[in-house]
């Protein structure tokens, strides 16, 4: 298959003066000063090469600051490579973010035409598709209002409705899914499926590994300005997740887990493990009463790497009441639950509350647990699903034996 995008030995350096010289005075003092002003060269990309084939859904992943947005801007032609070359075949949709060129002072209607022009549509073409765009965005009643009076959700809907009209062979998509509610995300994924069906070439930058796994054919992993791996989505996505784990080990020492409370009771040990060959999760905690505590309530919750709390409970919900604790008394608790979590790294928060509302010890990120499973799905939960499959006999006329 022909190449839609060829990236060859691309380097991108940004020269960052220590003090930016952009006034004449500074230029002169720079000339006459005995020492030259210092500057550093930041290598945003180093020796990156890959090809995106026609009709391919190509992913770019990497941590923040790895250079993936710079790479996308080079593909779009916004930045020029310091050396090397980027060649594209076919019409490239020129935007990389939603709602580019939106002007808050203009009405929704005017913004549609302006954004349409940026996408390369003539006025006549825009007139023809105007109603569809408005309908798809579900904003019929708001077209004569200024954009600044729109909610951010409305703006995104309008931008997305416009973006899906873009007629191009190659589309560059940057983190669209980070914005919008569940309903909007569903629309996004529907659009992606359409693109895939229509064999469009798509370059997709995302942190969302489940989306990467589901849609991308191949993925490049950018790490510290270099393309460290290119390959099938599954392989690169797990490589990326592992990269995160490793770096988190390193940063763990620096990362202060947040902890607050009056200290009348404290957790002394929190440990989260996967037990029973991966079927269950066990959270074991030890706590110590430092004074007399009335009706202590022990709780926990589990958050994913994105910070979303997924599950949790406490001893009051479980109707396991302790009337009171005296100073020096210790408590050992074990929470056990089926391991329904998908692959990834999770953190455990624990809390100790007494007298109904008084917070003794609230400890975020008290322990961490890593989940690895044989079967992988792109969803946040991955419980053990059993399947029974029955196939009825084929109709006689359809038989070929």
């Amino acid at each position: 298959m022909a190449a839609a995008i060829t990236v060859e030995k691309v380097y991108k350096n940004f020269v960052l003066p220590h003090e930016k010289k952009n006034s004449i005075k500074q230029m002169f003092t720079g000339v006459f000063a005995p020492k030259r002003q210092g500057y550093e060269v930041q290598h945003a990309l180093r020796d990156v090469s890959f090809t995106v084939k026609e009709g391919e859904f190509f992913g770019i992943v990497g941590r923040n600051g790895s250079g993936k947005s710079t790479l996308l801007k080079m593909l779009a032609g916004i930045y020029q490579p310091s050396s090397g070359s980027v060649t594209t075949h076919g019409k490239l949709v020129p935007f990389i973010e939603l709602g580019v060129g939106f002007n808050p002072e203009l009405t929704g209607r005017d913004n549609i035409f302006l954004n349409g022009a940026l996408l390369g549509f003539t006025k006549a073409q825009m007139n023809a598709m105007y109603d569809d765009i408005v309908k798809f965005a579900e904003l019929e009643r708001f077209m004569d209002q200024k954009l600044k009076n729109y909610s951010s959700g409305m703006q995104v809907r309008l931008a997305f409705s416009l973006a899906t009209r873009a007629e191009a062979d190659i589309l560059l998509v940057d983190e669209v899914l980070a914005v919008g509610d569940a309903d909007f995300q569903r629309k996004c994924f529907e659009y992606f499926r359409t693109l895939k069906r229509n064999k469009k070439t798509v370059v997709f930058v995302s942190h969302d590994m489940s989306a990467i796994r589901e849609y991308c054919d191949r993925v490049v992993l950018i790490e510290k300005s270099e393309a460290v791996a290119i390959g099938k989505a599954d392989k690169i996505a797990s490589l990326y997740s592992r990269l995160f784990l490793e770096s988190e080990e390193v940063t763990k020492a620096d990362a202060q887990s947040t902890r607050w409370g009056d200290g009348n009771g404290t957790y002394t040990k929190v440990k989260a493990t996967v037990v029973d060959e991966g079927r269950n999760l066990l959270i074991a905690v030890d706590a110590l009463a430092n004074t007399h505590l009335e009706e202590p309530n022990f709780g926990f919750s589990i958050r994913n790497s994105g910070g979303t709390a997924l599950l949790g409970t406490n001893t009051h919900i479980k109707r396991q009441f302790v009337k009171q604790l005296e100073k020096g008394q210790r408590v050992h608790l074990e929470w056990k639950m089926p391991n329904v979590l998908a692959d990834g790294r999770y953190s455990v928060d624990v809390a100790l509350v007494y007298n109904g509302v008084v917070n003794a010890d609230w400890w975020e990120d008290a322990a961490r647990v890593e989940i690895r499973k044989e079967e992988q799905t792109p969803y946040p939960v991955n419980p053990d699903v059993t399947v029974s499959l029955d196939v009825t006999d084929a109709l006689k006329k359809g038989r070929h034996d």
Partner: protein
Amino acid sequence: MKFSELSHKLRARYTYSLILLRELVITDFKLRYQSSFLGYLWSLLRPLAIFAILYVVFVLALGTNSRLPHVATYLLLGVVMWNYFSEVTNNGVGAIVGKGDLLRKINFPKYVIILAGSLSALINLTITILVVIGFMVFDHVGWHLSLLWAPLIFIELFVFAISLAFLLGALFVRLRDVNYIWEVIMQGAFYATPIIYDIADMPDKLQKIIILSPVAQMIHDLRYVAVTDKTYTIGTIYGNEWVRLFPISIVLFLAVVAVWYFRKRSRYFAEEI
């Protein structure tokens, strides 16, 4: 590359520029007059009001003992041309930086930004010219065949102003003093250009220097063809019509430099803004 492929590519490229240009000019107009009570009417009312002031100050208050006939129209033409020149260049300075948000997110032909700004000013100029023509009828200025030169003079003005806009806009990306420098230059140039005074009142030597500036040459050529042949032009001051080629060369030279510099720098606007 095959010729048909090339021509297709060229057409595709410029179609996009044209679509963008159109939309940017319209947007500019909408933004300028939105939420004002009289709206678009202002593009007509503004020059009218300015004329009224000039007329009161220079014709009624400072007397009418000028050697020139139709001194009001004579004044107006100078002011109109200068206003256009200053509108285009002043807008040009900040035009690229002002569109920084857009430049960082989308790749499009950058010259469209400057062109759009200059076209908006051109629309204003056209409206103003219509007002001036009305005023000329009111002032009983006669019509001459020499008026056919006027479009050429306006083309020279357009090229000069837009060249400076390209140059200043691109320079401002790297050097943020340009707007202050240009403000000062324009203030000085306003008095160095015979707009509100009669060049005939100047010493001969000074006349010869003043008239070498392209804007002075244009204003006086326009006054000559449109108002009165008593106007001093670069030809009459030097006694040689060919000296006119000097300011014209400045314009052409500047145009070449501006195109060269803008093309060279525009690739890097997105990362330098």
